[in-house]
């Protein structure tokens, strides 16, 4: 028995030997899972329940948490800032997701056919995905500065268009932040779309051509329907990303986070401020529960859409 000295129970060697192979393997399996189970229980599940519990308390870091029922939720739903933030979060989602998907699909569709310098062009689109949002937030912030500093206003004024306030304007700031957020995600979406396009068997296209379908019809009847799983994945992935937007907003509006006048503040920034600037932990926990509910809804929607097809 060469395996004796390699067993996990060092002491009771005879006991280990008497076990049959199946039992030994079960013991191995639970040995492998022991630490991970502790991890998931202690660092994922327990905190989740704790967050629900804290959302029903008035915990403020100083005094022990007291149960206050649904008071945090009542306060939140009566708070006009919460609704403003809610609206902002959905604006990021509703504009960001379709726009980034359409752009990345068009680029992927054409880039997929390019042979000459394919790798180089792909790299240009992919590079922004590798950047740090916190750092690039500052670069974009600089872009948006007024003349003589900002690059964009510099270009605008050189062609005779009036200066734009961008981050200083209640109407433009949210869109100004959305641009770098879309920019940073495009590379990933393009790569995934290209992988999806390549997974479509070439015979489908050949058959369609024999049937005399034009390019437009092929796109509508073959490419887009067969790309559905990829598209659904990207819709959900980028929706979740936009719903959780934080890094860009925080870094592009540091002197008045979420400003001007809360016009750019997303839910996660509100959570951050409630918890770590005002230390209203219970109230912040209630806001995280709202975020959780929205994200859960999006994920379930994905499962539903994909289930239906199969």
């Amino acid at each position, binding site marked *: 028995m060469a395996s004796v000295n390699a067993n996990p129970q060092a002491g009771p060697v005879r006991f280990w030997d008497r076990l049959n192979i199946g039992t030994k393997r*079960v013991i191995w399996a639970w040995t492998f899972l022991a630490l991970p189970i502790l991890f998931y229980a202690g660092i994922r*599940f327990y905190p989740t329940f704790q967050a629900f519990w804290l959302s029903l308390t008035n915990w403020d870091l100083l005094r022990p948490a007291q149960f206050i029922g649904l008071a945090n939720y009542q306060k939140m739903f009566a708070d006009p800032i919460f609704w403003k933030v809610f609206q902002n979060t959905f604006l990021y989602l509703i504009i960001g997701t379709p726009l980034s998907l359409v752009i990345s699909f068009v680029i992927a569709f054409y880039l997929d056919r390019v042979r000459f310098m394919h790798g180089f062009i792909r790299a240009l689109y992919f*590079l922004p995905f590798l950047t740090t949002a916190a*750092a690039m937030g500052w670069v974009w912030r600089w872009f948006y500065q007024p003349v003589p500093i900002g690059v964009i206003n510099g270009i605008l004024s050189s062609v005779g268009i009036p200066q734009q306030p961008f981050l200083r304007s209640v109407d433009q700031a949210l869109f100004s932040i959305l641009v770098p957020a879309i920019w940073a995600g495009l*590379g990933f979406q393009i790569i995934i779309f290209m992988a999806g396009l390549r997974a479509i068997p070439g015979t489908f296209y050949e058959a369609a051509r024999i049937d005399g379908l034009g390019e437009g019809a092929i796109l509508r009847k073959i490419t887009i329907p067969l790309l559905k799983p990829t598209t659904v994945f990207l819709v959900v992935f980028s929706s979740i990303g936009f719903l959780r937007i934080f890094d860009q907003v925080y870094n592009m509006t540091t002197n008045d986070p979420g400003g001007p006048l809360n016009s750019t503040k997303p839910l996660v920034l509100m959570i951050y401020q409630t918890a770590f600037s005002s230390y209203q932990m219970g109230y912040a926990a209630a806001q995280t529960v709202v975020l959780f509910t929205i994200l859960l809804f999006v994920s379930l929607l994905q499962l539903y859409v994909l289930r239906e097809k199969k």
Partner: protein
Amino acid sequence: MTATTSTTELAANRRDIRPGRIIAWTLLLIGGFIMITPLLYMFSTSLKTSAQVYDLKLIPVAPTLDNYFKVLNDGRFMQWFFNSTFIALTVTASNVFFDSLVGYTLAKFQFRGRYFIFLAILSTLMIPTEMLVIPWYLMSSQLGWLNSYWGIMFPGMMTAFGTFLMKQFFEGVPNDFLEAARVDGLNEFTIWWKIAMPMVVPAISALAIFTFLGNWTAFFWPLIVTTSKELYTLPVGISSFSAEASIQWELIMTGAAIGTIPTLLVFLVLQRYIVRGVMLAGLKG
């Protein structure tokens, strides 16, 4: 048309009209350069003096590395750089080890409760980090983990995404190999580490790339858990440095460039693997 080209792209190319393809190619190239314009401006400005920042030329008149010396001599950037590298590497190693081990166990062992464990781990994908940070913060302050490497790292030591990815790949490993190793008297841990792991190297590299990048750029949790500047990660450091530098844009751009250069260098060297890894993780994950 008679030449049978099995790949989609070639078949498509054949039908395209030449001028259309050239226009598409040119537009794609221009679009690509627009994509990296922010990066080009960042590097160009980091090579300018404060007086030159206002001329918006992309190529600096008299490029200088002074800003880099100024920023790096400060010492804090070196510390943050080290923190980020250490943290991202450690978390990546932990994920490669544990996510693979759990994925392998769930894919290749038969035992009661297996499906339950799998569903439980998978369900944590639905829990957003933002919901957990308040309890994590509480936990860290009670256990003295605030302002420590461990405090920054502990939430990400294992991920459901990685476990799921690795499980998918281990399912493709033929049982015959594992059985043969068992007959040879290898123990289960050795079988996993020496036999199964080398067979899923592409998945491991995809997981490693994603985990490293995710932790290198992570901002939200490190911002919360660190208050002392020595423990900042690079993104948090860049953010606080930039807020301090206020209008010294050439220094801000230098800081941002220092945070961007490492990932760009790694990408240039490993481009093919990274793109493939992203595709793998995206399609299977």
